[in-house]
């Protein structure tokens, strides 16, 4: 297996986290989070990849044909579903915040800070 997918995954995670850490707009931040998540797709798919292998569907291949690992593909599929749920929930919350508060800047939306005394 080539080292390239690992580097791509690490890079995607890194830029995603950088985006989340520096973002000044929640919609942008949610986009960065999705970038972060796509690093896990790349990682998982590259883990299961085999050179010169077919898709794991044996309808028109004899059993025993070298195929890519179907388990990681199932994992990625599950992860996409979960990711979509979370993104939808986050976007719904962000819209709600915008409607209530008129801003999407995390700096202006700090949760309540308990004051010391």
């Amino acid at each position, binding site marked *: 297996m080539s080292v390239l997918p690992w580097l791509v995954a690490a890079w995607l995670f890194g830029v995603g986290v950088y985006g989340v850490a520096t973002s000044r707009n929640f919609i942008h931040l949610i986009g960065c989070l999705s970038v972060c998540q796509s690093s896990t797709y790349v990682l998982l798919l590259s883990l299961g990849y085999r050179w010169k292998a077919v898709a794991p569907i044996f309808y028109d291949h004899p059993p025993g044909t070298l195929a890519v690992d179907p388990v990681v593909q199932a994992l990625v599929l599950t992860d996409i579903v979960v990711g979509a749920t979370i993104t939808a929930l986050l976007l719904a*919350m962000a819209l709600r915040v915008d409607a209530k508060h008129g801003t999407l800047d995390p700096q202006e939306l700090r949760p309540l800070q308990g004051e010391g005394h």
Partner: protein
Amino acid sequence: MLTQLIPLVVVGPMAIAAALLALAHVLPRYVPDVIAIATALGLSAFCGLLGAYALNHGPLTYWFGGWTPGRGVVLGIGFGVDPASAALAAFVGLLFAAAFVFAWGYFDEVHAHFHVLMLLFLAAMVGFCLTRDLFNLFVWFEVMSVSAFALTAYQLETPSLSGALNFTVTNSVAAFMMLGGVGLIYARAGVLDFEALGKVVAGAGHDPVIAGAFCLLAGALMIKGAILPFHFWLSDAHAVAPSPVSVIFSGAMVSVGLFALLKLALQVFGASADSRFLMHGLFIGLGCATSVVGGLMAWGQRHLKRMLAFSTIAHLGIMLIAVATLSATGVAGFLFYAVGHGLVKGALFMIMGILLATKASVDELDLKGLGKDIWPAGIAMGLGGLLLGGGPLGALDTGTRLVHAAAIAIGPLATAAIVLGSALTGAAVLRATGRIFLNLGPDPGDEAEAPSQKDQEKADRPLWLMLAPCLLLLLLAIVPVDGAKLIVARMAGVLASPRSADGAPPLPGTSLVLPCLSIGLAIIIALLDLFRERLPRPLVSATAGGTQIIFRGLKVLHSGLVGDYVVWIVIGLATFSIAFAFH
């Protein structure tokens, strides 16, 4: 026979949640409450039954779809019911039942969305406890997170939404880390079953990929378990969630996260020298730091729910110390501690709910002397504070003493951190009790106009209805549990090595000295804080200067900005890898 019924623990609550969602608009008003309470109680009883069976006949395993392992290949996804996991699941069910009773009539709307989300949350937590498949663990982690995010934001006000956004973003990063860890270890092992993974890890020796997987998985679970420097989301989320939800968050969700870390460390990475190195070194240090910082932050809060949230962080630090020892005593101590802490903290969050419903505030200074007419809540809160502070009574105390016994090998610093953490959190609750219910302390004057938001929870619920589940939890928390020590020791033994049938080592005897020291310290700190004005002035100003600097520093760190929290997560992960560099 019993094995075939295991999937019901997750299918049951989910099916009932779906049915409630479909039928809620035609059901009479309180029917969803009754159904939810019955489901949680039934689930708790069933998990208890499974646990008792597993204790006598060995752990049960259920393979979904009949995919039993064959010819040495584990392809299926299994639920493994060992006594400790089942007991924790039963406790979670009980806590949910109490929270449902407390939430009776809390939500006006007819669609029972609260009950649906809570039942989904319950199913996810039970699945999280019982699964023996790493990817399945991730799925339950996510289901648990999604329902928790939605429940945090339930009130759809600005504070709850911004708290929920911070919670969602940090815990999503945790999920990505976890998935990355799952991917890495799958790349090495080609299986996802705990037991099969454990065998591969045992045969691998020093492997950077496995070490990396452990770092990512541990980091993810420590975000869920709110360990320094991953803890920031907790105080934002727990402070703004509806009180019945905070009961579950603080009482069960976070400690279940640490339980998963314990299970992985024992069953998957048990034979890995790298993971042991990290657990015995860095993680114990993080546990100590979490305990002290959480305690200090709790003591410095005037927003009571935020104070309890930081107190939860402190106690999670203590639980991490127990987990990280990886010893039978530590594991048994963790099990007692998780249950005891869950009961006490659940009860305390219910009292916050009572204050919010009857007094429309959870600001300590704002509420000074206003608690006289709801004095039973004051007694309960005082008792909760004493138990948190280390009062020698019940499950939390048994757990604390076992953790102390396990931590003796580490050195006096760990012991001091545990004592200080529990004393400070106990002192914070006792101080608030004294101020609100006994009208102690100086008059706040202008300070009473709190900078914290006004918030009220639904007011027209009878006091006894809210107080009953709270008192029940406290009653369970003070029941002496020394008799259960033998059973819990066996549970801990099975957790460490599910296959071996040898008897568990007896738990060490424990002394009364440290609990008394801790509770004494808690009472003294609370009294000193309440009667600051009567102390000699030079003494006050000298100590005030020092504490001011510490609190200001800690407050700057707890910025409330999600970007900062994510940076802290990266710093935490970097610390893990730096620790490895010294291995």
